[in-house]
């Protein structure tokens, strides 16, 4: 049994990172430790500074020469809300991200369940195939879709439906790996076999034993998919562009025109990323908790 080693392919960053969080601890003193902590301080600062700059800018009135803003106000946000395209593009992005999440979940849950319970030999090919979206730059995906469907089924071009299909395809790896790691951690195969020996049908085991334990995988994968689709720009711009403007596309059109409104919109984008990340880390620890409980039971 492979245990909690998971994959070296770290797409399910959350499950892996939660496992690391419980790994053996660090030393407590020494030059290496001090250097390491200094490095982390720099790293944290580098990660946080742009976000702080954006947030501050979005709340400022005038900020041209002084170290800190001359005044604070919510004008940027008022201006953002007053902009015509704001609400429609926000809705479009939300609908798109939700739709992508639904598509990806519908595709991956049956697949991963099937692989772990009925067809383990499909595992390696499915792994490899789920890497395909990662091997293709999204610009290329957009071009390929436009060329292919332009000749095969032109009516689908420039529709949000095509964008949804594309988002679904490129988001699959995130959900797949989250669910895959989840399945391994709960040892789905043994659950299924245990259920079978106790007389349960496969769908009963599925409903009562396996699906309830997919929470962490679904949440971490789901948040990655949602945040990714919400903030995605390349496909949105190249496949539908101004015809169906999502939030990032609108945001990009503003970036050189109106810095204030852009900053407010960026804060919205940051908020989405932050909520997703917090949700991921919180739920990932539940995955770790399950695996640890199993380990303690002495498999």
């Amino acid at each position, binding site marked *: 049994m*492979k245990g909690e080693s998971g994959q070296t392919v770290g797409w399910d960053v959350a499950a892996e990172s939660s496992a690391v969080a419980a790994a053996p601890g660090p030393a407590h003193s020494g030059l290496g430790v001090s250097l390491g*902590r200094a490095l982390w301080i720099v790293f944290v600062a580098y990660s946080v500074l742009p976000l702080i700059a*954006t947030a501050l800018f979005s709340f400022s009135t005038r900020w041209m020469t002084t170290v800190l803003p001359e005044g604070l106000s919510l004008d940027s946000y008022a201006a953002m809300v007053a902009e015509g395209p704001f609400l429609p593009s926000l809705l479009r992005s939300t609908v798109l991200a939700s739709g992508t999440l639904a598509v990806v979940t519908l595709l991956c849950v049956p697949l991963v369940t099937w692989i772990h319970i009925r067809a383990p030999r499909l595992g390696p090919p499915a792994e490899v195939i789920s890497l395909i979206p990662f091997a293709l730059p999204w610009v290329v995906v957009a071009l390929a879709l436009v060329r292919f469907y332009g000749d095969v089924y032109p009516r689908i071009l420039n529709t949000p439906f095509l964008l949804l299909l594309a988002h679904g395809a490129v988001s699959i790896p995130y959900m797949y790996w989250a669910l895959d790691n989840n399945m391994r951690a709960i040892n789905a195969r043994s659950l299924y076999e245990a259920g079978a020996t106790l007389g349960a049908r496969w769908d009963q085991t599925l409903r009562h034993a396996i699906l309830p334990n997919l929470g962490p995988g679904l949440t971490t994968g789901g948040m990655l998919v949602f945040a990714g689709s919400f903030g995605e720009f390349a496909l949105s711009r190249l496949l539908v562009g101004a015809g169906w403007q999502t939030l990032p596309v609108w945001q990009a059109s503003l970036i050189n025109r109106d810095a204030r409104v852009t900053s407010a919109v960026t804060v919205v984008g940051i908020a989405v990323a932050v909520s997703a990340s917090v949700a991921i880390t919180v739920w990932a620890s539940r995955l770790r908790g399950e695996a640890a409980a199993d380990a303690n039971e002495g498999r």
Partner: protein
Amino acid sequence: MPAAVNSSPTPGSVGASGRVPWKLTAPLEHVGPAGFFFAYLALTLVAPTLYLVWSSVTIDGANFTLERYQRVLTDPFYLRGFGNSIKLSVATALEATLIGALVAAAFTYAMPVRSRKALLTLTNIATNLGGVSLAFAFVALLGTNGMLTIMLRSALGIELYPEFNLASLMGLNLVYLYHLTPFVFLVTLPAFRGIRRQWIEAALTLGATRWQFWRYVGVPVLMPTILAVFILTFANAFGTYSSAMALTVGRVNLVPLQIGFLFGEAAFDKELADALSVLMILMTTACVIFYRIASRRTARWTERTR
């Protein structure tokens, strides 16, 4: 046996259905929902990509030609684009891999366990931030009136502009780094988990210093992974479109941006976009394959077995 079952099987069920789960009863049944999955990927990625490759080497669907590749590879404009993309991607990949691996090491060996969740959340944010938001966040920080620019100007008298410009290769380097370093960190972290504490202790009891352990055992074991992550990061950087586009709007010559610009062009330029894209695909696919091979080599040493 695992104890994670939330409820017991329904009492009164007579027995498993007639099918034996792990025998191949029928090819279609064996494939099952996987069929939908593969069909979806075929329709959205595989078929379009193959079509793209095919159309890049054919004229009117009939004659084989490498003319577009020849045009791309002899055009100084696109060559410069490739050069810029490769330069930028190699540089950012090197930096991100080095820093990211060190950050992962520091995380495993220097940071208190209690802080780990918070730090992981932070790095997740950096990877989940969309390209356009990232681009603007850097404008807010290092643009002509960015926070840091103003601070340097008013507090220290240092004027960044016009020598430094965010919408340049150097500026993009900083932006890419923001996204790539956490990526490297998160992907390298599991490898560090594979460096067993017992190895370190064994080395120390045999009289080695920590430095010697890392030099002769730790780093060699990790090297395939780090190399693989470097390649993967290179592919990631090379294919980046969103933040580059949002930040520079085409003022910097990069291959993904060029493909994007050729999108709405007249027919004869579409073939050029095809050739550019196929070249990109070749590069990134080779990177992913290399990554798979190399990470399996490390897994040989670091996989936990029971």
